[in-house]
């Protein structure tokens, strides 16, 4: 399937871009991150991050569908 993937903050800097189109067979959002982390040398640990699909916070075992936007969210620091 084809997904749109977004990166923010330190993760965006590590990846070197904000968005990219990804073709993947990853079964879950977590699997997708493992795949992309390996490919691009991303060092942030999954347990410190959150993930959203189509602007809705989801669990790492959520399954993305073709056309979805998946965003990886580093530890937040608003306020």
């Amino acid at each position, binding site marked *: 399937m084809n997904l749109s993937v977004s990166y923010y*903050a330190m993760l965006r800097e590590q990846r070197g871009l904000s968005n990219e189109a990804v073709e993947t067979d990853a079964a879950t959002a977590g699997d997708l991150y493992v795949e992309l982390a390996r490919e691009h040398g991303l060092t942030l640990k999954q347990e410190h991050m959150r993930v959203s699909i189509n602007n809705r916070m989801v669990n790492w075992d959520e399954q993305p569908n073709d056309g979805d936007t998946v*965003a990886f969210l580093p*530890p937040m620091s*608003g306020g």
Partner: protein
Amino acid sequence: MLQLTNSPIDPAALRQQLVDTSSGALVTFEGTVRDINNRRDVTSLEYEAAEPELAENEFAAIAEEVRRRFQIIDLRCAHRTGTLKVGDLAVWIGVIAEHRADAFDACRYIIDELKHRLPIWKKEHYADGTSKWLMVDG
């Protein structure tokens, strides 16, 4: 209820949205950029936010929890994005309630949760030219 803005926050305008004849208490929280953090001289801050829709959805979840836990009438929140300098207002939260205990507790709950959950990231720039992405309350 959540206003994400790249321009200066206007507390007076937000306050005027919180008017109700049954309200006896308004508690507001304003977070501003400090000149020193973790013993380092801060020159500016950069706030990066996720998609407005994601931030709004997560804030709506926080607001729903607040209304379930505390007896409040209404609330508002604004958060800056972009580059801020020392003294600039980064976040404004206001809560009105019949009684003050609920207004205090709700306002504090919102800022505590927001810091962990709102998809916004803060990068500090220091006097020595370095910079760093912060973790919660860092």
